[in-house]
């Protein structure tokens, strides 16, 4: 019976109910989208790193897990690495950040092809001239580019010579030597990928390199990809924390406003319920159940909205942002919405419980 009253109360004010549900939905979408983009970006980075086909990677001392900035390593280090026992192949790449989330990667295509098996071209093929650029399918789709088109990157005009299937190394690739020259980083690289001559020699190579290159972050690819998680990226973790805090406040304000208005509007009805013997617990439970129902509906709509944001990102910015569906965050986002909502119903609930029945019954 109480559930019937809860549902009929919410149905009686469809605009307010819809707005409350939408506001909670936006709160949930905000959390799930951020988490989805974080996971998508990290997984994309991880997938592309695995696509290189390397067993180990060497990064500059002090570099972060998710990004590289500049080219602090000498390319002589590649030769040094090649000469180490059980190292079969080594290749250096240079990463130059562009605007937003994009970056351009310089590589030695022959070395990279030998290590990874090469790009799978969907259109065009390898570099023909120094001015050529290779781009992945998502970047091509986002920018509407085809083979032969020209693009401006780092104040330089490039010709698209090939569009490759996404999932290897980077989204935008040019020849290493050209990028080094254009960015005044002659003989400098950002990281080194290498393979061992046999899988059972990987740990031996790793131990040797760590001993010979102290201070350099050297990872097996398994180690590196396992480090690409939200918990190991402090900035992301803190950012998600801030967004969750904002979401709780938004939920609190929305439900506070909605339920406070509801309590004011329903002063007489609360008086009626008290007159027929409803105790404070019943009145409070009525409001709490309304709030819970709003939160659950808001969470459901919010989850659906994340598919909309996912679709928008996939079609509007396919190369920059990838949003994954992180199912295990659904109950977390729902719980956050419910906590914010329950905080919001406390004051209106107390107001309703404290209403004098005789005054409430004479309320117009």
């Amino acid at each position, binding site marked *: *019976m109480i559930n*019937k*009253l809860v549902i009929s109360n919410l149905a009686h004010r469809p605009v307010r109910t819809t707005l409350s549900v939408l506001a909670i939905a936006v709160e949930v979408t905000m959390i799930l989208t951020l988490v989805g983009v974080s996971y998508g970006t990290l997984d994309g980075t991880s997938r592309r790193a695995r696509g290189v086909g390397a067993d180990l990677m060497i990064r500059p001392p002090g570099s972060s897990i998710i990004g590289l900035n500049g080219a602090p390593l000498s390319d002589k280090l590649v030769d040094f690495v090649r000469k180490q026992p059980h190292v079969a192949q080594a290749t250096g790449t240079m990463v130059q950040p562009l605007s937003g989330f994009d970056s351009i990667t310089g590589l030695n295509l022959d070395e990279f092809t030998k290590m990874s098996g090469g790009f799978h071209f969907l259109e065009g093929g390898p570099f023909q001239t120094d001015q050529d650029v290779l781009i992945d399918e998502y970047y091509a789709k986002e920018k509407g580019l085809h083979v032969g088109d020209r693009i401006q990157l780092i104040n330089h005009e490039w010709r698209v010579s090939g569009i490759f299937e996404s999932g290897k190394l980077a989204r935008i690739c040019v020849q290493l030597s050209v990028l080094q020259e254009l960015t005044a980083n002659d003989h400098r690289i950002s990281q080194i990928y290498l393979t061992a001559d046999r899988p059972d020699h990987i740990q031996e190579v790793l131990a040797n390199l760590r001993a010979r290159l102290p201070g350099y972050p050297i990872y097996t690819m398994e180690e590196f990809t396992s480090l690409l998680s939200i918990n190991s990226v402090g900035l992301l973790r803190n950012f998600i924390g801030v967004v969750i805090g904002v979401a709780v406040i938004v939920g609190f304000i929305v439900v506070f406003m909605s339920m406070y208005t509801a309590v004011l509007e329903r002063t007489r009805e609360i008086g009626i319920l*008290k007159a*027929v*013997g409803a*105790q404070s617990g019943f009145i409070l439970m009525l409001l709490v159940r309304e709030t819970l129902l709003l939160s659950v509906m808001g969470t459901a709509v919010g989850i659906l909205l994340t598919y909309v944001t996912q679709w928008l990102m996939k079609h509007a910015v396919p190369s920059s942002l990838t949003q994954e569906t992180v199912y295990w965050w659904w109950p977390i986002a729902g719980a956050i919405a419910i906590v914010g909502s329950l905080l919001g119903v406390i004051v209106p609930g107390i107001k309703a419980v404290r209403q*004098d*029945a*005789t005054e409430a019954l004479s309320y117009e």
Partner: protein
Amino acid sequence: MSDAAIIEVKDLWKTYRAGDVDVHALQGASLEVAKGEFVAIVGASGSGKSTLFNILGTLTPPTSGTVKVNGRDLASLSNAERAIFRRSMVGFVFQKYNLLPTLTAEDNIRIVRYIGNRATEFTAEFKEVLELLGISDRMKHKPRALSGGQQQRVAIARAIVNGPAILLADEPTGNLDSQNSTAVLKLLKDLNQRLGQTILMITHDQEAASYGERTIHMRDGRVL
């Protein structure tokens, strides 16, 4: 308290604070109502009859004096006890019907059963009461789809659904036309005579009061 009295009020005072002024709504009112009686309380505005209604219904406590319903002293009840008392001992009929607008007529009655921790299904006996009230075919409608007379009949059904010891009616015909007023008053009288329901009806209308077995007059917070 006499053997047959279901309500006994002695030297009842109620003082409200309105700004800086004390308003004495009741000034030593006393009365007795026998079980099964239909009593009309008549008085002008400000005579204290609504305050008496609220105190008898445990909606507000008295400032001093004794109020006993079915032998229970209402002055000693806590808020929670007063709510429990209202569930089983009192039924209210208000001038403005006071039905929950979001529920159907049926659910307006059922929720009182629910709050009273009773089965929400209507008994055969209660269905007969609905027939008597002439609203059994209007149970699925919400209050806005009912006429004033029908709403007041639903309110009467709601008031007696838990078999209260007393039915308190505050100007039950105040918002009705003469035809519906007569119908509602006849129904109250019928309930009193058929079911032996004790009824206290507050009114300023002498004609309405004439439906009661006895009329009590109030003025300036006192029973005359």
